[in-house]
């Protein structure tokens, strides 16, 4: 049965937009229940302290307050914050939902107040008296590892959470045979995900039905339902989680947070709806952070630029506790350390360290941007050391297209790629050769113009369950309703990605219908069979494939019904224009008639079950590996150190594309988050463990005026891993772009002898490089000679 692609591959306008552009969508704080109470938290101003006492008595009697609870009050009633990642010999770092006798990061909650009104509850928070005994905070991860450092989690003797190693190929030989070994320490700074909608939870308990409903701004409604049941020790069938509109996540909402369980508990205690909406300051302090690695690299190369081996030691700052995947994220860096290069031998050693900060966890890219950034920086360092063009070094080390599927020394199988093609296209689209000529001219005039290149591969469509901490499959249910409308239920609950549109495109094509006849339902655990969620660029490749497989099942059944009624071979029927028709005899049956037959059940083939509903739990056999090449041009102001991105050209390959407009949107957003990491963003804790970038005033995310026009194009290398040949695109821009930006900044400064600039390349950092006492001023610098342009 053939599928006519009328909608797949087309830039269909989104089905979710009409409500969102009119202010008619409902995020958690937009939901209204009668008698809703508001919760607010008392949070530690200290990074590390003993909690001697928490006195909520004044708060308890404040106007409007109905409940005030401390850590001691809920201890034993609510389980610890869950972590799904297990690494052999990992220390445990249990986090109670409210701190009991010790706080370990600024913002950790010690008490919760509930009142009848948003303002009253904030007033009451100020009436809580907490007696803290400050302890020495452990802020720097390297110092945290040192002997004698204060220990966060007793009875352990140190703060090393785990050590993890990975090695493949003959590393000794690689380094012995090398003509050169290049070393560099590379920092991936701590970042704040900053979804526009802060977290928010509302919970309602019906004691008669024993039903707890929790609305939460989350990426993982089903996993949250399970964890709330476990934490509150109630039967799982009595918990329902609903995710209404979610205002962005970027990984920060693929977590289970204390407030989610606590609001459920409070609603059960009070028998009233309880709502908590995170303030932006709380969001900065207590929603997970991303990155925060110190990466020490050594690369072994031959004189002609061939890479023989790569060694990396990572110190990963995990923060004070584990969130859902905290310890696991750096291991993804290990898996992807070789990038898109044929590096025969590689070794990764990770030390996960506990410090008095908020936990790190998955932030857009989650472990892969770190790897891509350091391997792309190392390739440029190789080019600089060997006086080669960065393009040449990369080309020399790409695997050939016919070598795929390609096995890396880190144990992955890259599914499909043509790195040469995306590189060629980005060089053409950016006018690379001409840019280099312009650069030579500008350098003669003392101008600091830099050209940066990044060629990347990423791992997504997470993932086969064998390689995931807790299930890597996804579920879908597709139901053709008696009137012929289609309902798609997906476990991939979105937060801006547009599955309501893309999954409708798939269903419309497969069944010969219009996308408007398809409704995609997600984010309600009472309506949607168990699912995993949206993260790791998995929604289309895993969730979409589950939908596709359901549609195949329904087509088979509808084909048999239509074939039976028409007296035709079901194998020769096509679905088109709301009809099921025979290519040979031209006989046809209206789609809705075949559907009706399934429900009326009088003309079904003998033995066939009535109804039209298919369920699939799709288990992928491998990850997918999107790739691409980015070129970026920057100008550095030699007076101020300001970096201006003047050109950005990207070529991305995410396999087959369902909706090109949405794919471009993902790339745009991804690149701009990378601009944030490369040039602006840095979560800074001072030596006392205070988060001094605790507000948008101090933490700069990119604004419209900070960024250039992005020129995008695509190559298409379908994935063999799933039937639609799709790969995933949610994180590609963020993974590919950061190194292109920094490579451009370093290239701009290279005439001054600069070989590396740490993230973020803020103007004060550049200014300092420009004004080093030993540094030459730009005007004195002769144009750098480059070979073989």
């Amino acid at each position, binding site marked *: 049965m053939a599928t006519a692609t009328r909608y797949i591959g087309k*830039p269909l*306008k*989104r089905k*979710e*937009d*009409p409500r*969102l*552009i*009119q*202010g*008619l*969508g*409902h*995020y958690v*704080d*937009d939901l*209204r229940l009668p008698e809703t109470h508001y919760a607010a938290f008392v949070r530690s101003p200290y990074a590390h302290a003993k909690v001697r006492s928490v006195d909520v008595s004044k708060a308890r009697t404040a106007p409007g307050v109905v409940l005030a609870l401390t850590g001691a009050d809920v201890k034993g009633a609510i389980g610890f914050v869950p972590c799904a990642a297990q690494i052999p010999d990992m220390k445990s770092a249990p986090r109670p939902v409210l701190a009991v006798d010790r706080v370990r990061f600024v913002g950790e909650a010690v008490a919760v107040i509930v009142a009848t009104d*948003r*303002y009253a509850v904030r007033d009451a928070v100020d009436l809580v008296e907490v007696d803290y005994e400050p302890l020495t905070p452990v802020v720097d991860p390297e110092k945290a590892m040192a002997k004698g450092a204060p220990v966060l989690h007793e009875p352990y003797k140190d703060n090393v959470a785990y050590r993890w190693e990975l090695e493949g190929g003959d590393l000794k030989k690689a380094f012995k045979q090398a003509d050169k070994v290049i070393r560099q320490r590379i920092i991936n700074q701590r970042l704040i995900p*900053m*979804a*526009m*909608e*802060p977290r928010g939870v509302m919970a309602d308990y019906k004691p008669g039905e024993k039903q707890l409903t929790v609305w939460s701004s989350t990426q993982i409604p089903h996993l949250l339902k399970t964890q709330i049941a476990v934490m509150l020790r109630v039967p799982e069938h009595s918990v329902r989680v609903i995710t209404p*509109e*979610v*205002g*962005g996540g*970027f990984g920060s909402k693929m977590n289970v947070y204390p407030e989610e369980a606590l609001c459920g508990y409070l609603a059960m205690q009070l028998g009233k709806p309880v709502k908590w*909406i995170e*303030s*932006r300051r709380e969001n900065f302090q207590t929603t997970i952070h991303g990155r925060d690695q110190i990466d020490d690299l050594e690369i072994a190369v031959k004189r002609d630029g061939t890479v023989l081996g790569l060694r990396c030691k990572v110190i990963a700052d995990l923060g004070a506790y584990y969130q859902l995947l905290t310890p696991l994220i750096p291991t993804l860096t290990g898996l992807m350390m070789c990038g898109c290069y044929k590096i025969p031998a590689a070794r990764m050693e990770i030390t996960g360290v506990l410090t008095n900060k908020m936990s790190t966890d998955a932030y857009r890219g989650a472990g892969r941007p770190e790897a891509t950034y350091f391997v792309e920086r190392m390739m440029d360092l190789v080019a600089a050391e060997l006086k080669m063009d960065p393009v040449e070094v990369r080309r020399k080390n790409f695997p050939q297209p016919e070598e795929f599927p390609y096995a890396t020394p880190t144990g992955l199988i890259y599914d499909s790629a043509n790195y040469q093609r995306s590189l060629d296209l980005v060089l053409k689209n950016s006018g690379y050769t001409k840019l280099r000529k312009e650069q030579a001219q500008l350098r003669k005039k003392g101008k600091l113009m830099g050209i940066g290149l990044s060629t990347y591969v990423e791992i997504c469509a997470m993932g086969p369950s064998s390689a995931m901490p807790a299930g890597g499959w996804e579920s879908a249910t597709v139901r053709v309703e008696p009137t012929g409308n289609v309902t798609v239920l997906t476990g991939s609950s979105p*937060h*801006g*990605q*547009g599955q309501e549109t893309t999954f409708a495109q798939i269903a419309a094509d497969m069944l010969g219908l219009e996308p408007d006849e398809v409704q995609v339902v997600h984010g309600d655990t009472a309506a949607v069979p168990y699912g995993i969620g949206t993260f790791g660029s998995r929604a289309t490749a895993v969730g979409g494939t589950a939908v596709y497989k359901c549609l195949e099942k329904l087509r088979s059944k509808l084909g048999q019904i239509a074939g039976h009624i028409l007296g035709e071979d079901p194998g020769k029927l096509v679905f088109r224009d709301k009809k099921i028709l025979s290519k040979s005899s031209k006989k046809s049956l209206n789609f809705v008639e075949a559907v009706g037959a399934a429900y009326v059940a009088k003309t079904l083939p003998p033995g066939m079950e009535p109804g039209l509903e298919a369920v699939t739990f799709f288990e992928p056999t491998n990850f997918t590996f999107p790739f691409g090449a980015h070129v970026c041009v920057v100008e550095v102001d030699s007076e101020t150190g300001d970096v201006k991105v003047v050109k950005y050209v990207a070529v991305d390959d995410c396999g087959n594309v369902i909706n090109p*407009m*949405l794919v*471009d*949107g993902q790339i*745009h*957003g*991804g*690149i*701009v*988050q990378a601009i944030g990491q490369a040039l602006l963003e840095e979560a800074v804790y001072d030596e006392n463990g205070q988060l001094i970038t605790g*507000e*948008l*005033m101090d933490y700069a*995310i*990119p*604004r*419209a*005026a900070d*960024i250039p*026009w*992005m020129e995008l194009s695509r190559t298409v290398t379908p994935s063999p891993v799933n039937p639609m040949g799709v790969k995933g695109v949610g994180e590609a*821009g963020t993974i590919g772009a950061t190194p292109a930006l920094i490579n451009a900044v370093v290239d701009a400064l290279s005439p001054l002898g600069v070989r590396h600039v740490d993230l973020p390349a803020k103007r004060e950092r550049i200014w300092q490089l420009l004004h080093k006492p030993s540094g030459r001023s730009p005007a004195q610098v002769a144009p750098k000679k480059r070979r073989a342009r």
Partner: protein
Amino acid sequence: MAVDIQVRINGKPHDNKVEPRLLLVHYLRDTLGLTGTHVGCETTLCGACTVFVDSKAVKSCTMLAVQADGAEVTTIEGLASAPEAGGKLHPVQEGFWEKHGLQCGYCTPGMILASVELLRRNAEPSEAEIRRALAGNLCRCTGYQNIIEAVRYAGKKMKGRKR
């Protein structure tokens, strides 16, 4: 001590007793149920709460409801009745839909109102002018590029209608 305020919102008169410290955004959202206006930062930095107060784009998270006494307020819910819209989608709303100017949608109402204000001042803004005008409205999803396309689309459409 509650204070009596009279505000015209989306063309309809409202008369309410409010606490003096009640923020305009909470008045709109909690008192009147107009939840299309979002709160993103509570500190005037993100622009998600942008509304029109007497035709000026204002961040309603740092304005008190009592300061709006006697004013005319337009929120995203009332934009369709703006003069340029004629009861249908406003051209800027249409532009955001056509050009994929939103993903999660949280910044969108504020972004749309800030764009409308720009186009009322400057019917044909350049890319740089759009970027500058929207610098007070943060978006974490779109990378702004399609928002710029949306504003241009709307500008063209509004110019066409005036002719």
